[in-house]
């Protein structure tokens, strides 16, 4: 039986891991490679690195991080953040990532999804979507880009359909309202999107307890859950989350977990 994945997200700025609340006030919390190694040894199923480096000249720092992670961590990982061209996608994949995540640039130029899927396969192209509750939109959720700063005219559900039709092989769905609050995922929007598309949906934003993770994997129909704050600050370990999921009957990979 396919297991639900627990994915740890690391926001990387200039080669260091940071964490903010609702995309703001980021603080330094460590070396991404060392953190990735610790999570790998602790039984994480997958890792996501978001490059939030401000200046484009520092992009090579991120590729160094990706190469180092690839040498030490033998679970899948994806990289996102500011990726706008096929060349940037190729660089990230050649540095050792399994998948690349496109977000704002895919909204501006949706063809990057078609091009990436054609060049590297659908399984390599992840659509990152930041959404905000908005009653003016048909699905009740609006797509917001540029790290939560720029609202678009796109409806979340319509964009999920379009992006998967273009070849996105997975969706990481982040609720801006919930991000970093540790008050729980937005199970409603996760369910709306996950039940409508044929590709896996990763829930993101708001995890504070193992119960929140269980909720989004069951009531939110998510295929995987992304966690950050709750594990970065040592409140819970990946093992704590997985043991809870096992307790409530959600299938997870327990290999290597005490």
């Amino acid at each position, binding site marked *: *039986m*396919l*297991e*639900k*994945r627990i994915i740890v997200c690391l926001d990387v700025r200039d080669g260091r891991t940071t964490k903010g609340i609702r995309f703001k006030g980021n603080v330094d919390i460590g070396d991404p490679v060392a953190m990735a190694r610790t999570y*790998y040894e602790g*039984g994480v*199923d997958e890792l996501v690195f978001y490059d939030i480096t401000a200046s484009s000249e520092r992009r090579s720092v991120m590729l160094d991080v990706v190469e180092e992670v*690839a*040498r*030490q961590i*033998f*679970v*899948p990982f994806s990289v996102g953040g500011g990726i706008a061209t096929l060349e940037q996608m190729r660089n990230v*994949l*050649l*540095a*050792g990532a*399994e998948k690349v995540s496109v977000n704002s640039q895919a909204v501006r130029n949706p063809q990057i999804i078609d091009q990436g899927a054609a060049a*590297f*396969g*659908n*399984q*390599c192209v992840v659509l990152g979507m930041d959404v905000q509750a908005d009653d003016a939109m048909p699905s009740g959720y609006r797509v917001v880009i540029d790290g939560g700063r720029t609202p678009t005219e796109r409806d979340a559900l319509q964009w999920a359909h379009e992006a998967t039709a273009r070849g996105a*092989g*997975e969706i990481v769905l982040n609720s801006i309202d919930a991000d970093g609050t540790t008050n729980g995922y937005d199970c409603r929007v996760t369910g709306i999107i996950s039940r409508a598309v*044929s*590709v*896996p949906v990763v829930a993101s934003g708001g995890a504070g307890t193992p119960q929140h993770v269980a909720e989004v994997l069951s009531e939110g129909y998510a*295929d*995987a859950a992304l966690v950050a704050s709750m594990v970065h600050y040592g409140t819970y370990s990946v093992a704590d989350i997985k043991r809870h999921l096992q307790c409530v009957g959600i299938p997870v*990979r327990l*290999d*290597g977990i005490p």
Partner: protein
Amino acid sequence: MRVGVVDYDAGNLRSVETALLALGAQIVISHLPDQLLKSDRLIFPGVGDAAAAMRVLKSRGLDRAIAQYVRSGRPVLGICLGSQIVLDSSEENDAVCLGLIAGSARRFAAADGLKIPHMGWNQVEPTASHYLFNGIPTGASFYFVHSYFPQPGDSAAVIAETDYGVRFASAVCRDNLSAVQFHPEKSGPYGLQLLRNFLEHAP
């Protein structure tokens, strides 16, 4: 120990390379039959389209080289797409494949609640004793990303099964040729153990 890795433009070979390097193997990634035929072990990894992969293999003479290598008796391991193109054919664009193991690759049927591709960690249950699974518990999880799966004509070719709506062959073998549908190079410590078993097996 020199491991030849077949380069046929099928996806990213980097993760296979780094996993083998971490296990201390010497790697030769090549699209040249002569280079590959000289190696002590042969791996053909890959993601992507079966028909496209076969076209590239044929254009480089790699289809004959792989068959020749298999006949030599040295251990061969296929990964992911590599577990499908060892069969006679694939439903993916009606590809005619290498024909090293009787059977065909089938597509998962879209069923209620089942997303395709089958992506993520799933349990692998060996159905026969095989050196690849030495030291790996029954039901250990491995990482999968695929829409097609191998269906050998002879059930004796199946060495492990996995359940995704349907029970399918997640590992197959014939003599010195074995192939896994999952990605051992991305399957944590047990994945590395499987690759180590492949490297250390003395035929």
